[in-house]
């Protein structure tokens, strides 16, 4: 505890969002500082690094207009915390946790550090309760369960936001019919995307909390907004017993912000300039999803990742895929053929699916139907390459049947528009397809 406020005017250098203060008597890592610009504007900063009495501070806000002589830095002796209260539901904040919906700030019940604490692995409960999204291709073949983190790998121009909107509207727990509280973090979004999402959220009856960092707002806030969102999500889930669905869009903007700050710090760049610790940093967000033994409530995450250059091996989707429990991959080809949702079944995967399906959870034949649909479709897709070389005439009857099946599968099973299907309907659609092509499901 410090007895008085520590104010400094000993700034030695300024670069982008970074600021060095010298001759500092005491400071701690992660300590919140207030930065006061010469014109009286106040911003929040955070201590990143300490080397003797020189302190490196990262400033959340517009650093334009700061100077070396007159800018003041005040050390607050506390780390970054999020205010929490049940009143938070229904509110919209910016990336610095200031209300932007015109209503005054709520009175917090308490304050919690935004970086959170890792869940003790022995306290985790296995995710196994199905979340019905209403989309056949997800529920049937890449089932989402409570406590899972399942990213949507999209490419620019693909309707990822419509897919997310569909899930938001239709997602429910099969066992209880209960809805979700949605915590929404928009990072670097354009106004067009933002207004689309807000319309969807307002139509939902279950309630939401939104953190919005628009494309023209400070980049640093992109690093903070998801942490606020997850702190709120953990609070609602593990203290208030709610099932929380966290949507973060777009993680690519988050990673770019991370790269920006890393290069400003003159750190060694890793692949494509992203910092070497990006895996750990992303994990500190994604791993906050989960369920805890003996507690109600859950945090489920659906982050959206836009793959730069449609490349799934780009560091952002690559590292994300290594942390998350599967991925839903959208395909440009299917989108062009007017398939919605344009989910490519082959590279998509839900690692926690096995535990969420079957007798007592969905239906006894779920695993079998899913396996066969996948197998036949994969076969059909494989044959398309052959068809391109030898032409349809050069192929056997059996092969042509498979090709037709793959087409029908995309048209009727994957493509469904905004219509909602229950898991039962999904499985029946699949079974009917196989029957029509007289394919075995045994």
């Amino acid at each position, binding site marked *: 505890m410090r007895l008085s406020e520590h104010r400094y005017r000993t700034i030695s250098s300024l670069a982008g969002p970074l600021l060095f203060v010298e001759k500092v008597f005491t400071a701690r890592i992660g300590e919140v500082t207030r930065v006061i610009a010469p014109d009286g504007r106040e911003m929040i900063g955070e201590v990143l690094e300490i080397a003797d009495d020189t302190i490196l501070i990262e400033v959340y806000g517009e650093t334009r207009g700061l100077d070396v002589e007159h800018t003041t830095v005040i050390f607050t002796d506390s780390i970054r915390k999020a205010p929490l209260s049940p009143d938070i539901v229904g509110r919209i904040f910016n990336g610095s946790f200031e209300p932007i919906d015109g209503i005054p700030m709520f009175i917090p019940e308490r304050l919690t550090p935004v970086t959170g604490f*890792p869940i003790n692995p022995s306290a985790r409960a296995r995710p196994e309760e199905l979340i019905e999204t209403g989309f056949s291709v997800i529920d049937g073949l890449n089932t989402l369960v409570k*406590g899972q983190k399942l990213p949507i790998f999209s490419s620019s121009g693909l309707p990822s936001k419509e897919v997310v909107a569909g899930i938001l509207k239709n997602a429910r727990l099969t066992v209880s019919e209960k809805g979700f509280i949605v915590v929404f973090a928009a990072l670097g979004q354009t106004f067009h995307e933002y207004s689309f999402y807000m319309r969807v959220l307002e139509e939902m009856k279950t309630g939401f909390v939104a953190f919005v960092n628009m494309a023209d707002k400070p980049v640093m806030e992109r690093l903070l907004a998801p942490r606020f969102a997850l702190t709120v999500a953990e609070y609602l889930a593990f203290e208030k017993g709610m099932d929380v669905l966290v949507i973060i869009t777009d993680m690519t903007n988050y990673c770019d912000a991370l790269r920006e700050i890393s290069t400003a710090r003159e750190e060694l760049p890793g692949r494509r300039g992203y910092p070497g610790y990006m895996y750990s940093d992303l994990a500190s967000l994604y791993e906050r999803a989960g369920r805890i033994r003996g507690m109600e409530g859950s945090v489920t995450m659906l982050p959206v990742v836009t793959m730069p250059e449609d490349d799934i091996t780009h560091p952002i989707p*690559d590292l994300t895929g290594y942390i998350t429990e599967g991925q839903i991959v959208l395909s440009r080809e299917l989108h062009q053929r007017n398939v919605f949702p344009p989910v490519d079944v082959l590279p998509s995967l839900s690692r926690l699916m096995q535990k969420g399906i079957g007798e007592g959870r969905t239906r006894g034949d779920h695993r079998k139907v899913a396996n066969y649909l996948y197998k036949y479709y994969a076969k059909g897709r494989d044959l398309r390459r052959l068809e391109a070389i030898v032409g349809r005439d050069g192929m056997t009857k059996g092969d042509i049947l498979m090709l037709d099946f793959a087409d029908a599968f995309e048209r009727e099973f994957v493509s469904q528009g905004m219509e909602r299907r229950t898991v039962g309907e999904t499985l029946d659609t699949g079974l009917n397809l196989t029957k029509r092509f007289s394919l075995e499901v045994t």
Partner: protein
Amino acid sequence: MTGKIRGISGPTVSVDLKGLKLYERVYVGHAMLTGEVVRLEEERAIIQVYEDSRGLGIGEPVVGAGMPLTVRLGPGLLSGMFDGLQRPLRKLKEETGPFITSGREIYALDYLKKWRFFPIKREGDTVSPGEIIGYAEEGQFKHFFASRIDSCRKISRIVEGEFSLDESLGEYEDGSEILGCFEWPVRAARPFKKKFPPTSPLVTGQRSIDFLFPLARGGTAILPGGFGTGKTVLEQAVAKFADVDIVVYVGCGERGNEMAEMIEEFETLKDPWTGRHLMERTILVVNTSNMPVAAREASIYTAVTMAEYYRDMGYHVLFLADSLSRWAEALREISSSLEEMPGEEGYPTYLASRLSGYLERAGVVETLSGGTGSLSMILSVSPPGGDFTEPVTQACLRTTGAFLMLDTSLAHRRHFPAINWFQSYSLYAKDIAGHYREKVAPEWEALQQRCRQLLQEEESLREVAEIVGIEGLQDADRLLMKIAEMIRSEFLSQNSYTEDAFSPPERTLSMIKGILDFHDYASEKLKQGMTLEEVLQREKR
């Protein structure tokens, strides 16, 4: 001896404390976070902190512990679950709730639990270093206690019956105590008498491994694969079914939910070899991706030291780590915060030597007490973008004995385990072929050879078929493709979620024999003038 924090950068802290030793353990800050000295300069020491350094301030005190980072070794480790610093996670949960906070020291072993001691040596016996003095029963295992490893001593008193770890088991003549547990520095390999080349097989129950790329007890193998290729599922399947006494599994920088799933399974599933609960033979070390990075780096050392401890009792121990890449990344992160000169892709240049030094801790050994124990390692590697030319995979290739390459395109076809049969290899195949020949079947190697050849031929036929269409092939070739497909889809792929998850060598043999016998039979029929369709029809009936 107390110093003060002068600087903090990520997981490294510099302090103005003199008299520390390199790799000495230190306690950092008011929260008493665990750290290790990684560099000494004239006036200051650089410390790597193993816990979350958030909230740490300049001027906070730092104290040296006077010894290196250690693990506690003694009865009660089996079925335990620890973090990278060997803190017991279940006990931690009881004390601090479901979230992990920093700065808690909880001992790995339960010092109050009563064990029953059965002495083997008597009063007046002289014991050589590391000789067995007695044992306690730890579940299904005899937990052997060895004498001190420094010199020969004479026992002046030895107890029998109940004891707890805070009591002594007797004394030596020179006045030193016989203890039931002790501490051992994690970065030092445990001593043994002699090392032998691996000659006996490590049966995993995975057909593609046991048949095509067999592993050996005391050997090392890596499992590299991009995401979604089933590294974790395969590692866990091997952990469940491998023919060894004890399994040490490290979740190094991986997913928490997967660990939760694994723990629940291990608590309910039975070991197919002994019929006991799997957890009874397992030690878990878990440092998930969101737990502190430096502790992730330490976790594989913590785990391997415990594995060596059981090896020294004469057990066959299997060590699995998922994933080694996360360890290497932790090393890179620490290295860059120390501002070391980076090597390839930012990894420190000592990556390869650290790795090879580590992998050398595997092996079949004659223990100090004269028994034979083995430590085998299977390590998964997560190459970025699925590109095997990256430094971690390459460094491993030079020192490990088996390379089980997981193939993304196989995984997309849902062929699991997605082990690529052209690229993978095992250097142990020759050494242990004799065992399979004698114990399972004399024709084992011949079958292996034929199976490989079929897969090769299928590959070249497939290229032809792409051009002329499958109809354009001769019946014998189409049959070969059919057989190869049977080998791939029925024999080499194995569903981890069904009964088939574990395939003992006998079943592996009868399956491949069945397929190859059918090939012989069908070829014969083709020669007699039947068409392929007729042969297949008949087979169906």
